[in-house]
């Protein structure tokens, strides 16, 4: 119980930089892997929601209902509770409940429905006339998805995945606190539990930098893709 003063924040000699670096990589790895899976799963789910909305087909209606329920339920569960809830499933799926890989299922299950809703919204905001033009040319549903829906809503899809990824970074830190590794884990164990405020501060600064980098890349990509106005 020493070094509780404000000066303790800047006692950098106590920081294990090697540990810090490997934790940073763990956070980035966790973020990137879950981002990729969330992007794929979210677009697939969002597309499914979009395509089954307003459908007359009873099977499509059922599918829409099931997917919407899944999305709404998992979007509502606070992340910290979701991790605990999913522990047995994680054990079964990954074989462990400790370490970065163990955090993946809960990260993905919590973020994919969130992103799926954004994807659905992005498709709904498209000008329906463009879809109709493609229909009038004899496009199949799949051609419309591939050549109209996805490219035309790309800026919204990219800015959506940027927002989702940034909240994923927050989630990785939370997952870290209960043993998933990464900067969250470091800040909690070596920083909070060992009363080493310098470690907490450095971990925080690195997380902020990671968030800034993802935001910058996302904004840059959107600007590059969006040809609607100059």
């Amino acid at each position, binding site marked *: 119980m020493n070094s509780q003063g404000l000066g303790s924040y800047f006692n950098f000699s106590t920081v294990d930089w090697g540990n810090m670096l490997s934790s940073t990589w763990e956070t980035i790895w966790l973020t990137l892997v879950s981002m990729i899976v969330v992007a794929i799963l979210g677009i697939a789910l969002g597309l499914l929601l979009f395509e089954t909305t307003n459908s007359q087909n009873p099977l499509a209606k059922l599918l829409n209902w099931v997917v919407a329920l899944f999305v709404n339920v998992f979007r509502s569960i606070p992340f910290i509770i979701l991790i605990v809830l999913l522990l047995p499933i994680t054990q079964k799926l990954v074989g462990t409940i400790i370490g970065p890989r163990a955090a993946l299922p809960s990260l993905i299950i919590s973020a994919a429905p969130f992103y799926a809703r954004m994807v659905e919204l992005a498709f709904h905001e498209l*000008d329906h*006339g*463009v879809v*109709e*033009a*493609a*229909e*009038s*040319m*004899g*496009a*199949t549903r799949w*051609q419309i998805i591939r*050549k*109209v829906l996805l*490219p*035309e809503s*790309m800026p919204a899809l990219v800015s959506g995945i940027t927002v989702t990824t940034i909240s994923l970074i927050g989630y990785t830190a939370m997952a870290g606190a209960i043993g998933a590794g990464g900067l969250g884990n470091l800040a909690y164990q070596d920083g909070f539990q060992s009363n080493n405020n310098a470690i907490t501060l450095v971990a925080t600064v690195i997380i902020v930098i990671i968030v800034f980098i993802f935001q910058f890349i996302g904004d840059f990509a959107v600007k590059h*893709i969006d*040809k*609607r*106005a*100059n």
Partner: protein
Amino acid sequence: MIEFKDVTKTFDSKQGSVHAVQDVNLKIEDGHIYGIVGYSGAGKSTLIRMLNGLETPTSGAVNIDGVEISALTGAALREQRHKIGMIFQHFNLLWSRTVLENIMFPLEIAGNNKADAKKKAEHLAELVGLTGRETAYPSELSGGQKQRVGIARALANDPQILLSDEATSALDPQTTDEVLDLLLDINKKLNLTIVLITHEMHVIRKIADHVAVMEDGKIVEQGPVLEVFKRPKQAVTKRFVNEEVTPSLNETTAVVGQLLEKYPKGTIVQLTFHGDQAQLPIVSEMLKQYTLDLNIIEGAIHQTQEGAIGSLYIQISGDQDQLDGALAYLQKMRVETEVLNRE
């Protein structure tokens, strides 16, 4: 040839059924430019969308060259759609694609390879006057240029029919004329059947050879454009024709009102000339034969695809027998006359 046979379309909603199209029978010959005119809600949009299966009739049949398009579904319908181009009021271009890529879009859909599609698209861009703008994005184009892309795109799969859904309604008058000239040019060059819907009589006059007038889902009048212009039978047709012949009818009505007040004794007559009559000195001949004072209030002459149509508002005053003689003379010369202040 396009044929609508007893076509009816009813939309059911919670407020009850809406008869968007009712008992429509229509034949459109190959190579014609057929205009369908009507105010919004008349059902013309629903009607034209049946030609490429975007809407299906509740009853009746829509045939194109003997194929009942209203009965096609799935792959057969998509195959047929490749052969029917469509242009839209709001262009409906893909903003994520360049001009050339937009024109290539229907070719990709029809399964052409990229190299062929590109070649074809370059040729079409030239045809519609977009040379040099191939790499521009739609956001960088003017309205007229966007519609040119729309037209090139609609022509990509060598259609036999081009559908135009209010294609010039979002454009200014000059650009409208440019786009209409382009459509006329294409119609002649490619012998393309064009079916267009519009609420602007100007569009009909400028390029259509045949016209159908729609009101409340029904076709109330149809025929060659000049014919319908000459002798409009239905009130709605008269409204359209008047709108076109005297674009400032409201102003004219105000002037007529003033003149009626100012010269209570004068007679105000609206004269309508058709075709060759518009070129004859009928009014000056009338003045030579009858002793009258004449005051011109407003006049206009419009060219249609089949001849000129003119409209003239005049005030004449003089002795009653001279007046009656002059009106009889005009009728003899087959000028349509309408006396405005004799109730």
